[in-house]
């Protein structure tokens, strides 16, 4: 293909120079932006929030058909296993009924003991259920975007969970969407307790499928299968949320298998325990006390 001859011989070199200059300028701008993102996160994150919020309605629509297809597949699979599932569930029910009796007895006992000790009762959590409309759990970062935002009562720093356990923490809130940083992200550092021994540790994401435990006290004893719950230290997460299980103890450190399958998130609950959290900005915390429980499933209530 021949170059077009519409430009004069004089204008072409100037144009080329200007284009090259613009190119170098953009490369420098991209670099500067990364630097800025490292230093001043608020400004850059606000830009990101606006961007996400603008695209949220499109993502909301696009994610629906795939969700429906997935539900269809799941239903067909469930039909196939109906017989075995039924037998298994009956067995489980018998076992759980026994546990229920035990739990009721313990709860009553717990209540009496707490009354005797004058324990201050913990606040009940309210929650918002939101649909996952974008899954960016790629190699670069591990987060999801949900279709509930500030107008639904979602606030920065709140914990996101499913029935299985902890998913992550809300890091950005737009008016109609929010970004949840998964507990596997490299920026996620969660204070946890290793359950049977109540050993404190920090669970740190690595952008891999399974986070690892660090900052254990010297001499801590940890075994494969120990369960991990949030400790509630630092005021980010409420205490006692189920997180995962220790899946490997070895040279590579202590690896945690999260209870939640983070690659198949469809709905998450965003909990509001009325905790301030270390991440919340003082000026934003002021107007946050009236967070209401709403079902965000159908979009705007």
């Amino acid at each position, binding site marked *: *293909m021949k170059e077009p001859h519409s430009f004069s011989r004089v204008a072409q070199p100037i144009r080329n120079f200007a284009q090259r200059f613009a*190119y170098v300028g953009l490369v420098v701008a991209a670099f500067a*932006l*990364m630097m800025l993102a490292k230093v001043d996160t608020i400004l850059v994150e606000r830009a990101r929030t606006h961007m996400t919020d603008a695209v949220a309605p499109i993502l909301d629509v696009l994610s629906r058909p*795939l969700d429906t297809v997935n539900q269809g597949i799941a239903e067909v699979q469930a039909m196939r296993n109906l017989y075995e599932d039924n037998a298994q569930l009956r067995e489980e029910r018998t076992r759980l009924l026994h546990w229920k009796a035990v739990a009721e007895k313990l709860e009553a006992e717990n209540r009496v003991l707490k009354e005797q000790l004058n324990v201050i009762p913990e606040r009940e959590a309210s929650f918002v259920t939101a649909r996952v409309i*974008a899954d960016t759990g790629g*190699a*670069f970062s591990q987060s999801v975007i949900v279709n509930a935002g500030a107008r639904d009562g979602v606030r920065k720093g709140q914990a996101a969970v499913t029935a299985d356990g902890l998913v992550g923490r809300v890091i950005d809130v737009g008016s109609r969407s929010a970004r949840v940083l998964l507990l596997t992200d490299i920026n996620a550092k969660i204070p946890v307790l290793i359950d049977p021994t109540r050993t404190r540790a920090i669970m740190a994401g690595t952008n*891999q499928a399974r986070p690892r435990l660090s900052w254990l006290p010297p001499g801590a004893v940890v075994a494969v299968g120990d369960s991990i719950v949030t400790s509630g230290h630092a005021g980010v997460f409420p205490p006692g949320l189920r997180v995962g299980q220790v899946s490997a103890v070895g040279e590579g450190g202590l690896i945690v298998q999260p209870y939640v399958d983070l*690659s198949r998130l469809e709905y998450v609950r965003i909990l509001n325990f009325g905790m301030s959290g270390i991440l919340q900005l003082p000026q934003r915390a002021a107007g946050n006390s009236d967070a209401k429980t709403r079902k965000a499933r159908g979009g705007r209530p």
Partner: protein
Amino acid sequence: MRPSFWQRLDTLARNLTPVALTLVLVILNVVPTHVPGIARVLPVLPLIAVFHWSIHRPHLMPAPAVFLIGLFQDGLTGAPMGLHALIFLAVQGVVLFQHKFFMGKSFFIHWLGFGLVGAGATALSWVLLSAFHVTLFAADAIAFQYVMTVAAFPLFAFLFSRWQQAFLKAD
């Protein structure tokens, strides 16, 4: 004869499609699939688009547009802002620098070229990410992503070529 207003509008709309399609790919890239493990190795579709259009219609994929596409990608995926802007610009820079080489070559040469340029982009992203987080990043997911992106190239290059023949004939 000067083209009429509507003809010019038509041409403009057609000429905007390479950038618009690339933006659509950025969005499609983050739609949840619910397939276990796939999100970590999903191909970086906009990279294919930037590469393809930089070869075939460089003037319809100008550097400022590439920059904005990169920012959009960063904004949606949660990657550090500016990371993909830099990577996409680098890919475009290499393609334009070697433009004479790519022009008129067969599809397989383009694929091979994408393999090489993509490897460079992957290495660059690993270096930038590691520097940004001040830690040595695990490279396996990024490497997988690279393989998937190269594997996805023929399909998207084919679709873009068809689009180009159907809508961008005027070039």
